[in-house]
């Protein structure tokens, strides 16, 4: 059986993010795409063109929801109205699983509008686990938490990022959205071996993989999603697939978005790694 219980035992293949500059191409050419990932917050409204577009997409394509404002690690509890709207959208899209980031972004009612890293402490593990569990229970579908890229580390951290991620997903009994580009970005910014990270995460909990490009500056790397995927990230992806098996994969391209075909072709490069895995599996039988 493909997949695991964190992605509803599905093998979605390789998808891309649904972005407005591609709408015309999608509706006029109806390209074959395994699936689209949508940003939940862009469709959590009562009516209007975004929902009309979404309904048209849902008629022809599989859609998986990805959120950017759950802030599982914030000390402040999630807004019940936000959760209600999210559940409404889940019913509309029938997303088999839903993902958001393992980060924080608001405190005392103030929103930073950023995906900020957590200190890797036991207190943060407990707080985050509690949040993930309550969200998962409320939404009644599998939730996957995504590792974020980061530029700062905390003096108070008690474990590595991958140990923290593992503690959270195992205690919350949730899935993981493994972003191999984020691992690469953070590995450069925090000076660790990214392969150690990929080798350490519980493979059986990986519901989905993200791939993306980034921008390199003199002293650090920024997670910009505006370039093709670089070879070291493909190497991490190959290792992730080797460990996790065929896993729904999504290319993120959010800035300076090129043509639909260019984005789709970049995403489809992932298929060679998925096929290589399938070939190796067949050879072993």
């Amino acid at each position, binding site marked *: 059986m493909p997949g695991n219980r964190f992605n509803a035992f599905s093998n979605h293949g390789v998808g891309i993010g649904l*972005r*407005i*500059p591609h*709408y015309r191409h999608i509706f006029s050419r109806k390209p074959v795409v395994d699936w689209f990932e949508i*940003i939940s*917050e*862009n469709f*959590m*409204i009562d009516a*209007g*063109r*975004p929902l009309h577009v979404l309904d048209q997409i849902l008629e022809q394509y599989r859609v998986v929801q990805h959120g*950017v*404002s759950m802030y599982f*690690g914030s*000390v402040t509890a999630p*807004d019940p109205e*936000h959760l209600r709207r999210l559940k409404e959208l889940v019913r509309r899209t029938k997303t088999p699983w839903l993902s958001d980031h393992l980060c*924080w*972004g*608001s*405190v*005392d009612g*103030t*929103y*930073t*509008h*950023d*995906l*900020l890293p*957590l*200190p890797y*402490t*036991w*207190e*943060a593990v407990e*707080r985050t686990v509690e949040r993930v569990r309550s969200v998962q229970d409320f939404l009644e579908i599998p939730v996957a938490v995504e590792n974020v890229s980061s*530029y*700062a*580390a*905390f*003096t*108070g*951290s*008690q474990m590595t990022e991958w*140990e923290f991620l593992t*503690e959270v997903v195992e205690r919350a009994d949730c899935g993981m959205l493994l972003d191999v580009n984020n691992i690469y970005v953070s590995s450069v*910014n*925090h*000076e660790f071996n990214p392969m150690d990270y990929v080798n350490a995460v519980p493979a059986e909990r990986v519901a989905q993989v993200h791939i993306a490009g980034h*921008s390199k500056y003199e*002293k*650090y790397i*920024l*997670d*910009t*999603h505006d370039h093709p995927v670089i070879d070291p990230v493909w190497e991490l992806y190959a290792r992730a697939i080797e460990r996790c098996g065929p896993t729904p994969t999504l290319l993120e391209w*959010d*800035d300076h*978005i090129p043509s639909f075909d260019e984005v789709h072709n970049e995403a489809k490069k992932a298929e060679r790694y998925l096929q290589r895995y399938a070939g190796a599996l067949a050879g072993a039988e």
Partner: protein
Amino acid sequence: MNPDEMKRPEMSLVDVQRAMASAVMMPLTANEEMRATGPDGRAMTEVASSFVAPNSRLSAFERLEIYNRQIERLPLMRLGIHAKTVQNPFSRLSAQLGPCRGRPSHHRQHRLPKRVRIFCRHFRA
């Protein structure tokens, strides 16, 4: 790992989040750098070092400054608009998002937080 055997961090989670939010949401200087002193008059090098670890290339201050630049370059922050409003792409907010419609310079645009870069897609199309 046994949590009981580990040294407890000096700052609680909420204290770290308050300190970081306060630092990264400060207005930048005219040169788009993080301010040398915080709202309480403390040196930001000291504040940053109290909870951010340096690496071999960047000081604690410089690492915090990356987030300060990302966040404070947001037009949303300057307008004092909060996440709930941002979630509705057809709210009156769209009329106030001028800087997102155009093309900020390459470098500036990259430093917008991912969450907002994605949101801004709606206003460019």
